[in-house]
């Protein structure tokens, strides 16, 4: 109940932000923070609640982004339709990946490596085909207006992302109070013990990766309307995968508000980094790396776990100890 109140309060507080804040810079900043929160929420579902650490969530993000861009450019589909189809396509890619990986019982670092490899394969494929624009990428035509999910003001995107993040918060709240969530967390904690209690780990993880993929794919669809451009490196490169996992790890794995908290914190730090080091490419990633090490060492439960003992370090340890289970 307290969580539900917090979700409603969070949305209500942010709702009038575009009316109160005049600076374009800050509205853009908030919008991007919400975008990464949304991506992080997708990752948190599988990684935080399911304990399956994906290093390749760009696979789903990129699939969603390309799906909507291609449908729009080549088939003239409406962006909202593209948004829905992007989620479906990325969900299917998630289900396919999950079916392959979980069928053979890959866990821990093996799962992470396979997702990383899959994203890389898709990056190379996107680089090679005509209809994905190959290395040049795809430019989505500018058609401002609500009908094409391209808003005339910055506030439009802000509200769209706030609605999506809010919906995800509610979904996570539901998850924590549902049988599916209980089973997912049981699988995360101890797969054999879960099986002994009648939980089917394959089915549970498959649902989680499908839902996680669909959400990440819909994030890709929004990204395309926001920036009107996609290329293989943005779509399937490691940068997006790293953002997706860093956000919930910093905020708090397996918590409702972790990804939101993490996205705002990470984005603030990245902004400070840009001010301090200028736009030197790659320095941001060094900063992220240092941050990740510090978080794992000193705040395994994320910012959210500052005052609360829950889960975190154990699962990271498991990640590196983990291994294949036949």
């Amino acid at each position: 109940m307290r969580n539900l109140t917090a979700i409603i309060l969070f949305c209500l507080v942010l709702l009038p932000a575009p009316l109160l804040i005049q600076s374009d810079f800050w509205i853009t900043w908030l919008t991007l923070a919400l975008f990464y929160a949304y991506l992080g929420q997708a990752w948190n579902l599988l990684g935080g609640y399911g304990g399956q650490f994906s290093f390749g969530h760009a696979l789903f993000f990129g699939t969603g982004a390309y799906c909507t861009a291609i449908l729009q450019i080549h088939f003239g589909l409406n962006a909202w339709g593209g948004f829905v189809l992007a989620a479906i396509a990325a969900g299917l890619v998630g289900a396919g990946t999950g079916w392959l990986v979980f069928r053979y019982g890959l866990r821990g670092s093996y799962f992470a490596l396979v997702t990383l490899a899959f994203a890389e394969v898709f990056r190379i494929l996107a680089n090679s085909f005509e209809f994905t624009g190959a290395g040049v990428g795809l430019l989505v035509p500018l058609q401002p207006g609500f009908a094409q999910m391209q808003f005339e003001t910055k506030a439009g995107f802000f509200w769209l992302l706030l609605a999506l993040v809010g919906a995800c918060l509610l979904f996570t709240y539901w998850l924590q109070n549902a049988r599916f969530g209980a089973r997912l967390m049981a699988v995360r904690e101890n797969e054999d013990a879960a099986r002994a209690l009648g939980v089917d780990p394959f089915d549970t993880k498959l649902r989680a990766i499908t839902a996680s993929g669909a959400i990440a794919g819909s994030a890709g669809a929004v990204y395309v309307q926001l920036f009107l451009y996609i290329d293989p490196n943005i779509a399937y490169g490691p940068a997006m995968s790293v953002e997706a996992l860093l956000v919930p790890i910093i905020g708090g794995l397996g918590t409702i508000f972790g990804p939101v908290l993490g996205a705002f914190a990470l984005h603030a730090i990245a902004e400070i980094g840009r001010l301090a080091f200028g736009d030197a490419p790659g320095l941001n990633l060094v900063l992220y790396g240092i941050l990740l090490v510090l978080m794992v060492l000193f705040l395994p439960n994320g910012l959210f776990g500052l005052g609360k003992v829950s889960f975190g370090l154990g699962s990271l340890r498991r990640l590196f100890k983990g291994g294949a289970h036949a």
Partner: protein
Amino acid sequence: MLEVSRLSKRFGGLVATNDVSFTIQEGSISALIGPNGAGKTTIFAQISGFHRPDAGDIRFNGRSLVGLTPEKICLLGIARTFQIVQPFAGLNVRENIAVGAHLRRAGRRAALEHAEAIAHRVGLGPQLDKPAAALTVAGRKRLELAKALATDPKLLLLDEVMAGLNPAEIDEIIPIIRGIRQSGVTILLIEHVMRAVMNLSDHAWVLNNGALIASGTPSQIAANPQVIEAYLGHGAAARMQAQIQEARHA
């Protein structure tokens, strides 16, 4: 209720289960005993679907369990505990038990209520909100029992739920297990604590080197020379007899 017939399982050159057959009557408490490494837990793993037998059959109410997954077998009504306790460390006691309760209850509220009732039954009532990782050994053993019980099993396989407990804790858990049987659950237990085996079970089987060497009521088993030898080594029964004779003459 459960019929195990000619069950065999090898791990490489080691015969872990060698042509084992036994039948468990509905409503009974039976015990599987034997020295360490005799293959007791391997039999549990085969009944519960974690290991597939190489030969033989396991039938539960007439239905063969061979080849079914652990989750399917649990759904049919057989729940097991683990000798090395397997709590969901990041969850609290209530949430741990609720995972089991969810097997036959879709709603969260119904599952949590059932979990609480089960916790009170096994004496975990005061610890419902504790993280599972914070429980003592005795608490973890009870949690193991509670999780399995929450799935509403017809047959409960208990793998050394008393190992590592002190005598006072064992005295607490014996009436709990008896209460579970009275509520209509058939029980098969693996146990080293002979006091508990004597106290609880109607029937016992003795396993040594993967094969059954004796079967009977607990008191029959305790007097069986083969059983004494399995535990204490070759010739032990004769030596014990001799010592008893000597003591009488002295």
